[in-house]
């Protein structure tokens, strides 16, 4: 079986690292490998997603379809072809001046 291809949703604050693309395809069996694949192609994302120890940053939420990977198998969550992986950042705007 070939490695699954998934759609990654890139939030607006990180799009400067992906040439303004809102969705990017990536390949990987797990969330970890799909994100690795993403970062290899868009290295500027690395510091936004990972801390210096190489772990995912705490304020970065990763969803597979509509579920938070913290309640699945974390970065080891398995992916199937066509899965939608979302990076969900905190944004603060509202009473913008």
């Amino acid at each position, binding site marked *: 079986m070939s490695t699954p291809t998934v759609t990654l949703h890139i*939030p*607006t*604050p990180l799009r*400067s690292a992906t040439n303004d693309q*809102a969705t990017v395809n990536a390949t990987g069996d797990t969330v970890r490998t799909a994100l690795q694949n993403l970062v290899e192609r868009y290295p500027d994302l690395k510091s*936004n997603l990972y801390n210096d120890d190489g772990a995912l*940053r*705490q*304020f970065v*939420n990763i*969803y597979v379809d*509509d*579920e*938070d990977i913290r*309640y699945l198998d974390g970065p080891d969550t398995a992916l199937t072809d066509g899965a939608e992986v*979302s990076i*969900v*950042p*905190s*944004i*603060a*705007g*509202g*009473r*913008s*001046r």
Partner: protein
Amino acid sequence: MQADNQTATLSSEELRRYNRHLTLPEFGREGQEALKNASVLLVGAGGLGSPAAMYLAAAGVGHIGLVDFDHVEASNLQRQILYGTSDVGRPKLDAAEERLNDLNPHVEVTRHAVRLSSENALDIVDQYDVVADGTDNFPTRYLVNDACVLTGTPNVYASIFRFEGQVSVFATEDGPCYRCLYEEPPPPGLVPSCAEGGVLGVLPGLVGTLQATEVIKLLTGIGEPLIGRLLMINALSMNFRTLRVRKNPDCVICSDNPTQTELIDYEAFCGIPDANESTDDDMAVPETTVHELKQARDSGTAPFVLDVRKPHEAEIASIEADQLIPVDELPDRLSELNADAETPIVVHCRSGARSERATKFLRQKGYNASNLKGGILAWSKEIDDSVPTY
């Protein structure tokens, strides 16, 4: 929650006014009376708070509280529809109260013209049935969340950035809270503010209206509120998606065994240095005031001025910088910098925040850089008011 348990009924004038609600089978007189006897606190009377306040007033929510301490600025009018051109310069809450009273005299408006803080938040939040959080910064987001959890007040959360919005309902009895979704704030500087990033004016209209919808559903008990769901809105692709938000069994504040049982210092929690503390650490950078820059330019000893904003910002307002390199591109484009290590460089942006980061970076690389205090806003205010503010 409201201490007043007396139930007010609808007058004949109100029955006429709310006719289109009364004929809704799911809503009816019962729903309308629930709204009349309910109270909601809007934190922030800006882009989100404007449409939310207007629709909630029009709908007949009996008591609306507003928290905001700003004055109306011309750059607000592109999206903050509570205010008109003639309101520029007025305190927001004065203008907002007038507008809401005119929209619906049956609504009681309470003004909280304060900065919400750990000292006052519990007292203010506790007076209301529901909170609608439409603030613009992370410390206040966490403060509102914690105050809602501690007082048992549901929080209709909404947030926007450029063309994107998020809406959810937090801090209900069994639902998750904001900290269940975002345990920690991002470090300062990583996520740009709306002023830096821009926002499509109609987007807070769309998102603030969704927020008002959720408030009305909570107050009347109809439908399925966004409890445990995060609605993600993209206005460019016009996609709406919902993601599941679970209650974190280890949440520091809303779990069964919370480790935090009172409000904390939210500026410190979000990594923002206390303005009252001395900043004698190695993070402080030298500053140049706008007057010093003006004087230097007038006397022919002008430093090299580097603009670190985005190019489109320079099209709006410029102080004739020698070069523009956006702060995020500076590390990669340092070789393009037209100044050597000896040349005094004054770095500027809009308000002085991004340029402080850039100055820090340049000094680490051995450049003689200083930060233009207050940025182009200060220049416009103190030196040349023909330079537009935005």
